[in-house]
């Protein structure tokens, strides 16, 4: 399988660890269901990123599933962080959103679904550890403006549309500075009740 996915390595790294300071995201260890949903969305054009849309355009479901399962099993080491330390106020706001949410705006904490260790949840919620702040902020912004979606009910759309731009910057920065846990495996589903209904968990 490693030989078959050489098409991925110049961007996502030989084991899916991500490259170019996270501009190309880490895919290793994310739940297979999440990776599969993204591959299908890139193939069918419902998630837009031309280099990916082009690469997977003519690949069948079963093979995309296999690719997703391959990368879900990889556990390459995490890169050392060099995210700049922010202003303490911004730092605190980011930590609050990620760990406690903002009840006044109806924003649940990231950890409620992405896991206490931020390693995601089977089958469809991605881990956030190992991602860079610019990548996380770009994805939240795409969700907010409606150019990225997930299966309905699209919980991430509800959350992202409640986040302001400064909130997105604060929470992306905080998430990107968290150290990866020893065990980076996603959590099992149904250990906790999720605050919002998410189509990708069905």
């Amino acid at each position: 399988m490693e030989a078959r996915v050489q098409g991925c390595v110049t961007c996502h790294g030989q084991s899916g660890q991500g490259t170019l300071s996270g501009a190309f995201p880490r895919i290793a260890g994310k739940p297979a269901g999440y990776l599969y949903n993204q591959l299908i969305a890139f193939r069918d054009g419902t998630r837009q990123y031309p280099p990916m849309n082009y690469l997977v355009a003519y690949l069948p479901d079963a093979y995309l599933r296999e690719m997703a399962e391959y990368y879900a099993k990889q556990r390459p080491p995490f890169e050392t962080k060099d995210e700049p330390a922010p202003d303490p106020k911004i730092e605190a706001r980011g930590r609050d959103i990620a760990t406690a949410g903002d009840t006044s705006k109806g924003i649940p904490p990231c950890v409620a679904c992405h896991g206490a260790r931020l390693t995601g949840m089977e089958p469809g919620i991605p881990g956030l550890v190992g991602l860079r702040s610019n990548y996380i902020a770009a994805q939240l912004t795409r969700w907010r403006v409606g150019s990225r979606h997930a299966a309905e009910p699209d919980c991430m759309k509800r959350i992202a549309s409640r986040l302001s731009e400064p909130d997105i910057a604060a929470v992306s920065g905080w998430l990107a500075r968290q150290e990866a846990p020893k065990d980076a495996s996603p959590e099992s589903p149904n250990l906790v009740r999720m605050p919002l209904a998410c189509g990708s968990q069905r």
Partner: protein
Amino acid sequence: MSIGLRIAIGAVVLVILAVIAWTLFRPGMLPQTTATATATNATTQFLNRGEYLARAGDCVACHTAPEGREFAGGRAMPTPFGNLYVPNITPDDETGIGKWSADDFYRMMHTGISRDGSLMYPAMPFASYTKITREDSDAIYAYLMSVPPVQQKNRAHALRFPFNKRDLLLGWRALYFEEGEYVPDPKQSAQWNRGAYLVQGLGHCSMCHTAINRLGGSSESDAFEGGMIPNQNWYAPSLTSNREAGLGHWSIKDITDLLQVGISTRGTVYGPMAEVVYNSLQYVSDEDVEAMAVYLKTLPKRDSEPPPTSQARLVSPNVMETGRKVYATQCAMCHGAEGGGQPPQFPPLAGNQSITMASPVNSIRMVLNGGYPPGTRKNPRPHGMPPFAHILTDAEVAAVVTYIRVAWENNGTPVTPTQANELRTLLPE
């Protein structure tokens, strides 16, 4: 007997009668339709044939929008003259072709004239479909009538003036359209004629493999001579020149593999041809693909075309050295130090016509964007090549493409960084 007792007895009798009736007249399981029973049914056979032919004609590729319902149209087709929006060909009475007769459908396929009498734009390959037999047209018609109707209004084309005037198509037709079913060549075998019928007709290969001029036409004398595909920025190589994609020196097995599997020991399909294999050719029967190969192999006429002059092939030693270094670091792992590749998974570069042909566009694009061959029934898990656009500079892309075009006795010509830059700025598709 009290009234109560009578009612009770009556009720018991009714229940018994109901049980008897249920047992006697209960509908049984429907008789099982076995596979053999299905295949011998004439209507089923006709519809299967229509579906097969519709696949060979790749109707679905254009007539289905991304994420859209099958055959419901709506897909934007960018042309040098503006966007065309492909129509709904599901059998919906209002918005599709539900009210068309088999005669209407044949007239459209054969002459490019729609049911309402309007002239069709030649993005619909009626110049190829005109060669299809009435019988095949009827089978495709029957199949299309059998798919689920989708109510979806056609979107108006967005062509620039003067191309939005359909009357102009009369001129186009006079210049570039010749009506008529395929006429078998009695000097050739039945297999060759079957291949020619498929390649020239349903396959509509000439839509890309014949150069299209500024009026969107292509002349018969240039048939299969190759050309840039408008708006997709891939080069569709000549099928008549053994310097390009001419298959004169290919084995039949390699040709059928390329067309039906997507990979072969001589080369691999990417880009628009990967789409054709994915949506259409992988479903064509072994027998028909072989017939196409037999015909295609006889197309090249210009076998003795002189290679580029040694003057044209001159490469500066610095460029060659850069190219060699990039090749050793990035390419040799899969394509081999001597360009032999690991066919069919990793295509060979040495002696590969698609590398050395005059247009370097496809090679540059592969280096920039990488690519996966299509996942097909006979190769469902293809090996892919990664993009290098973010790793290599324009000068390095040009150097490595130059290197593979002239190394190992390949007789191509050098490529400039400007050529690499022009393709880098385009979105891959």
